[in-house]
């Protein structure tokens, strides 16, 4: 029951954010210079920010970016991890050892530290669209070691199972066995990794944005909108807290939508 409700909320949020262009009353960057930091009113249901932009519109567009791109980055990470796991089954022990050493190396650096360092190495004064791509591509490209470790172990277990031995005995090649027989059987592990990784990326984006290394203005994301809370002059306004409430609801639903006994360390 809880699982169904959580999934329903997530789907509703996802669809709602997809329709930002329809539901949002104004473009996210439009400034109303006569209504700077205005309180909630009929024209602006959540008021305007200190630059005179409609908060509801920014919340909607920001949600679209966060809710679409965090799963996209997760798919990239899990996709890379799956390829590495299948390659370890096909290419044998030397590849597997090399990959495991690389994973240990990656995991010896805390995730947020790695993200900040690599983000710092890239140019910071990029256009908003480029910063959006850089942020989520970084999340996707640096997040593969965790899922890869789990998927390699699962692929190894599958490779040693009877049905794989039987397919090999019948003359099925290594690539075909990996793609046609092992990969589909990894689906539950892939799903679990997706549900573990996507919320972590939502949080990582919010952390990066709060530290000023996220998506560039004026493009909104939930993380960018949380930056308004750093301004004590507007922090008392309940409308400023709505992105945080939405983020917490999304994170909570992600935790409940796919209960995982042993969350990955």
């Amino acid at each position, binding site marked *: 029951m809880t699982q169904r409700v959580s999934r329903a909320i997530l789907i509703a949020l996802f669809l709602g954010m997809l329709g930002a262009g329809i539901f949002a009353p104004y473009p996210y960057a439009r400034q109303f210079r006569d209504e700077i930091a205005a309180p909630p009113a009929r024209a602006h249901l959540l008021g305007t920010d200190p630059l005179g932009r409609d908060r509801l519109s920014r919340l909607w567009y920001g949600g679209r970016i966060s809710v679409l791109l965090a799963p996209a980055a997760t798919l990239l990470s899990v996709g890379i991890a799956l390829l590495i796991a299948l390659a370890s089954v096909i290419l044998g022990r030397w590849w597997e050892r090399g990959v495991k*050493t690389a994973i*240990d*190396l990656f995991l*010896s*650096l*805390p*995730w*947020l*530290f790695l993200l*900040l*360092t*690599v*983000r*710092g*190495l*890239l*140019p*910071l004064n990029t256009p908003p669209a480029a910063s959006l791509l850089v942020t989520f591509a970084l999340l996707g490209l640096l997040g593969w070691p965790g899922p890869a470790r789990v998927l390699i172990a699962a692929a190894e277990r599958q490779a040693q199972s009877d049905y794989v031995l039987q397919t090999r005995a019948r003359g099925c090649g290594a690539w075909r066995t990996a793609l046609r027989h092992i990969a589909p059987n990894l689906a539950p592990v892939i799903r679990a990794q997706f549900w573990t990784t996507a*919320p972590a990326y939502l*949080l990582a984006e*919010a*952390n990066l944005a*709060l*530290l*000023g*290394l996220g998506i560039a203005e004026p493009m909104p994301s939930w*993380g960018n909108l*949380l930056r308004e*809370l*750093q301004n004590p002059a507007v*922090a008392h306004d309940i409308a400023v807290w709505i992105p*945080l409430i939405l*983020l*917490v609801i999304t*994170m*909570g639903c992600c*935790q409940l939508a796919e209960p995982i*006994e*042993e*969350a990955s*360390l």
Partner: protein
Amino acid sequence: MNQSFRRFAGAGLRQGLMLLLTLTATAMLSALLIGSAPGIGMDERQLDLRLSERSIDAIRSRRFVTGVGAYLRDVVTGDWGVSISLGRPVRELVRERGGLTLKTLGGGLTLAWTLALGLSLILEDLHWHGPERAAALLAGGLLCLPAAMVALLSVRLDLSPALALATVIGPRIFRYVRNILAAWSRMPYVLAARARGAAGLALVCRHICIPAAPELLALGGISAGMAIGVVIPVETVCGSPGVGQLVWLAAMGRDLPVLIHLTVLVAAAVSGANLVCDALRAFLERAT
């Protein structure tokens, strides 16, 4: 006895070699990464029209990453270079800020572990569904908050950075500790002890905590790594002038000499913490 000691020492040697390999590889990778970063080696002073051609040539010829070999030699000899944005030796900056970060990390980890372990032990002893669910809900709720947001709230409430750190990593530690203790409490010998009337914290400590100690120690190493990651947003948002804040300043200012050395330092700290925890776990397993 002698043979088991030799095996223990061999494992320790292997772990030490792995640590050395990790650090060398991290240093080489970060040097390579920094060498290929866009805009590397460019200095805004090159555009200064007041400088002579010779001065500009001198600036242009000054490269702080001259190669992996030279970099490793500098690290070993203690020359960590000079920060571009702060204009001070990196070693001095790290020494100056390290104490505060260690204090924040120590305080945060101690508090998080005390709360997580204490709450888990109490819940294990009581076996009440209500408090169990409430604790799971609280931990789940706190896990939904970004670390920087928790730090921001701690600033608003005038709380210390160590407390913010404990609030971020405490729920994670609690979840893992709770799972480990719950798994051990389902062991047949624990069920038998309960059936014979054994109860209370003595049962939990003696029959659940002590056998689970190796797993808890492994978690200790992982939690140290988590805390080092979390200390960056916490110190940055709380305005605490530690190494975490230095990482952020270096990332914002593209201060590559600082970033490269801090990467190696953080890798050493995380690997070292895991090594110590692994050695303690091996020792404990050998003793029991």
